[in-house]
């Protein structure tokens, strides 16, 4: 049995120290060790995008990192998107434009869109489609998601 490693990292502003076996995926660590089940797990090989989180301010697939690699980093998950009980403007836009149906892909979509919109103003629908190309939705269809992203661009003062 492989040894465990002690890691300390910040998730949504809270510092955590835990002992993890090296093979513990960051996605498992976030969901099961920290109880933050907003980060979803789909394909577990980096294709579907629902486990997308922010590591040191840049999006990453939580299923393609081991928790031990995240030692010392600062992470944002979907739970850290909004301040307090309100919705983040991106979440509000997804709500208004019905940018979700079952909601499984939503946490990853929101984090990818946050990175995209933080770098882009007044995007075209085509740019939005490219920005969410790494996040698969299997129920709503992308039309309402694209509308939601365009709405989020209006709502989010940044």
């Amino acid at each position: 049995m492989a040894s465990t490693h002690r890691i300390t990292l910040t998730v949504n502003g809270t510092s955590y120290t835990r002992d993890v076996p090296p093979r513990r995926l960051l996605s498992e660590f976030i969901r099961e060790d920290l109880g933050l089940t907003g980060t979803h797990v789909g394909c577990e090989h980096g294709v579907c995008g629902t486990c997308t989180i922010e590591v040191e301010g840049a999006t990453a697939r939580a299923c393609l990192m081991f928790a031990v690699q995240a030692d010392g980093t600062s992470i944002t998950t979907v739970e850290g998107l909004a301040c307090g009980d309100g919705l983040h403007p991106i979440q509000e836009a997804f709500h208004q434009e019905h940018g979700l149906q079952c909601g499984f892909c939503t946490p990853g979509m929101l984090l990818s869109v946050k990175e995209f919109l933080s770098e882009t103003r007044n995007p075209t629908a085509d740019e939005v489609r490219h920005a969410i190309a790494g996040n698969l939705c299997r129920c709503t269809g992308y039309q309402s998601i694209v509308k939601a992203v365009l709405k989020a661009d209006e709502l989010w003062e940044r």
Partner: protein
Amino acid sequence: MRSVSFEYARPATVDEAVALLAEHGDDAKILAGGQSLVPLLNFRMAQPSHVVDIAALTSLAYIRPTAEGLEIGALTSQRAVELSTDVERRCPLLHEAIAHVGHRQTRNRGTIGGSLVHADPAAELPAVSLALGAELRVRGPDGERVIAASDFFKGYLATAMGANELLLSVQLPSWPQGTGHCFVEFCRRQGDFAIVGAAALVSLAADGTVANVGLALNGVAGRPFDGTPVVSAALLGKVPGDAVIAQAAASIEAAVEPDSDVHAPADYRRHLAKVMTARALAGAAGRARSGEGGL
């Protein structure tokens, strides 16, 4: 899905990393960005007893203009390559191709070295390195050696590197003034591995004839396909018009021997090899003529 258990080490220096590889050999895997290795681990296609995380070897993350062209450290993220103006100016073929590598979320963590040593035959960067005539600098217990891209890719996920060697950097030669570049690929969805892709460089002489050509394809064999020797006869010394390019593309169609798989039958891949070759060569020749995107 879960990897087998493994011991984890995070060496602080290249020497330490190489020593760990020397100690564990085939039982060790190098972890950099993890965007190719972690899926292999999750599927248990790789079952190492030791994983050597080289994330702390930040001396291997750099993009450095050189007299010959550009040197990129193995640990440089694909995203850093994508954003680099040095890459855009000095190696526009790589700049064009890198946006096709995975998605933004994987390029943030994936490294240029990882993509090269993973040697997926459908991947873009191995084909680009082959078309450019890149050289890969590796370090083992006996010191450094340099491997030409044409000798580096041996087969499906297999390279000329020993299990005790670490990739340090890739050296990308600049092509002369009057060179045009083009990378194209065909895939079902953006960000997927290509079914077939082509990377081309065309250098024109003052009289408009082809002075030099570089061509490589991804997705048509167990390793990136070196198309340069195949098309040289059809192109060198000729004005690269439609008929000349069509002849070169036909020679690629005849030369490749793709396998059928779940994504595409062999005949279709062979057809795409012709079409992608023609588009890449025409794109590169056009840029060489106009001086746009040339070197």
